[in-house]
């Protein structure tokens, strides 16, 4: 059916409906874990539901991407189709940017408005009446209600692990670009080496990030419950970390596909999408490094 310039419209597909069921079951399971947990009930069933949902999602992802890969390798995709994928991926990344923007916005708002007000400054400075003795500082080492929200005893030093992580991620952005150039020149050995290097850097990043969390919880009392500093810190770094893990998975799958001989110097959108995503994750990190750790 693929005549030269016609646009490929896939036949009926079972994947979307499987994806829907998977998503619903996962979400319902996740919700039940939390709700049952706070009600003090057993969460076993909830976990089972959640795991079933996740398995369906995993099955769906393999199946769905599998058929896309197959169609692509069968040459069903015209350059126009390729452009659709590109638009799709770009706008998806834009939506992710906005997702992080909400969290960064929360951080800026807390620092420039909420905390100074609570500390007695500016327009709503009389709020300080309610929180005797509270001083506005950042990082916030004393919370308005110190009993309900015990503050951290310290914060992560940006010039140790975070600096190392910055170097790791920036380097990985370079290595993935080198890999891309290698792919365009059809030098598959170099491609594999540089892509593998990227993945190693990514894993190292995640490992260091985990170490940092352990440090925060055990040595600094910096936790999710330690007031707005801990809240924004873990929210931003946590969601970034989740994105790094997702990006690493994408890159790994690309590496597997490359070893299977997929992609040509002209057509390799899957690889490009993964590397775009990787650059995005890198840029977000730079924002984090500056606004969460340094300033």
């Amino acid at each position: 059916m693929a005549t030269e310039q016609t646009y490929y419209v896939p036949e009926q597909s079972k994947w979307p409906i499987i994806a829907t069921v998977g998503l619903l079951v996962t979400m319902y399971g996740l919700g039940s874990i939390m709700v049952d947990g706070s009600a003090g009930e057993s969460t076993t069933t909830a976990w089972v539901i959640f795991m079933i949902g996740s398995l369906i999602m995993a099955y769906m992802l393999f199946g769905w991407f599998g058929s896309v890969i197959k169609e692509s390798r069968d040459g069903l995709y015209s350059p126009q189709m390729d452009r659709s994928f590109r638009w799709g991926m770009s706008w998806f990344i834009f939506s992710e940017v906005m997702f992080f923007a909400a969290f960064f916005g929360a951080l800026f708002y807390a620092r420039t408005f909420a905390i100074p007000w609570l500390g007695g400054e500016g327009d709503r400075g009389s709020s300080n009446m309610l929180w005797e003795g509270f001083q506005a500082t950042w990082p916030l080492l004393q919370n308005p209600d110190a009993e309900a929200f015990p503050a951290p005893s310290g914060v992560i030093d940006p010039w140790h692990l975070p600096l190392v992580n910055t170097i790791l991620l920036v380097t990985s952005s370079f290595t993935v670009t080198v890999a891309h150039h290698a792919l365009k020149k059809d030098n598959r050995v170099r491609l594999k080496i540089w892509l593998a290097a990227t993945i190693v850097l990514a894993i190292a990043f995640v490992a260091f990030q985990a170490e940092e969390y352990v440090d925060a919880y055990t040595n600094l009392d910096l936790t999710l419950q330690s007031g707005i500093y801990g809240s924004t810190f873990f929210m931003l770094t946590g969601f970034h970390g989740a994105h790094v893990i997702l990006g690493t998975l994408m890159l790994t799958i690309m590496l597997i596909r490359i070893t299977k001989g997929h992609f040509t110097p002209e057509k390799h959108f899957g690889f490009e999408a993964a590397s775009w995503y990787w650059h995005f994750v890198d840029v977000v990190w730079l924002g984090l490094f500056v606004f969460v750790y340094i300033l």
Partner: protein
Amino acid sequence: MRKKALRVGSLMAGLTLSQLALADWEVNMTPGVTGVSRDIFGLHMTIFWICVAIGIVVFGVMFWSIFAHRKSRGYKPANFHEHTWVEILWTIIPLAILVVMAIPATITLLDMYNTDESEVDIKVTGYQWKWRYDFINEEFGYFSTLSTPRDEIYNRAEKNENYLLEVDKPLVLPVGRKVRFLMTANDVIHSWWVPALGVKKDAIPGFINETWTRIDEPGIYRGQCTELCGKDHGFMPIVVKAVPQDEYDEWVAEQVAMAEKERELTSKDWTLEELMARGEKAYDTTCAACHQQDGSGSPPAFPALKGSAVATGPVDHHMDIVVHGVSGTAMQAFGKQLSEVDLAAIITYERNAWGNDTGEMVTPKQILDYKNAQQ
């Protein structure tokens, strides 16, 4: 359709014009009794008439076309489809109109935000579902709760004139003085609104908002909470009683004396009957909103107290819950909200009413000791 729209338009215009004649229909904003409320009313009417005027022009042209340029009258379509000058004009004219509106609006806004040089300071705290007024400088305060009987709400009794708009203790304010409000809340966001004063401000837990008023005429002004704050959001009215200065001073002196007397009551010897009587009243105003008058609650959100393990079990635990509340739930810490007498009366009542016949009595003194032991 044209008729309909015209009718609606003239209805609105007519009703606002003959506002006095139709006072009981209440179709327009009140001009109120403060400088700010009158400024707002003026702004409101100005914008309203500007909109009416624009509406007449725009809809006028449209109805004319609908009437004249229809196919059934054999009208042949013209074929223009742009005209730069007209388009520029109808961008600039609305812009100019907006500027005209913005100037008085900005002036009024700046005035509303100016809380300097206040003469009376009152801290207003929103609770689920009542208001507390603290006269900061005079050091007394009290709660103000809906006083409409439940029978009227559930249609078992004739509704009176101020249905849902009456409270047990109104906020008393002096006329002609600048009163500053410090608004905050204890649990969720509430919003304190009295239309006649032109004051509406959100009461936000953990933060304080400032606003002010200066009332020109003595009178009783009613308002309501305007931020959804849970189940009884519709049942937390505000009543302001504005009185001349000397009457106000008298009232303040009385309140200060009463607060003193209340403290003395703590050391009085109470009988079970006295406590039960006082407890029933206090329970109905403070606790019945959630736990119901008959102690049945509305599970699972609000537990029943009738036969509850807490109300029939150890006294200390019962006191603990009432004094300190249950954090993270709607059950507040009533220790600071109620006097020792009321706390003792309520707890005694809960332990003996609705068949919870424990026969135990908790005295105000016990509460005081309990509270002191905590510190």
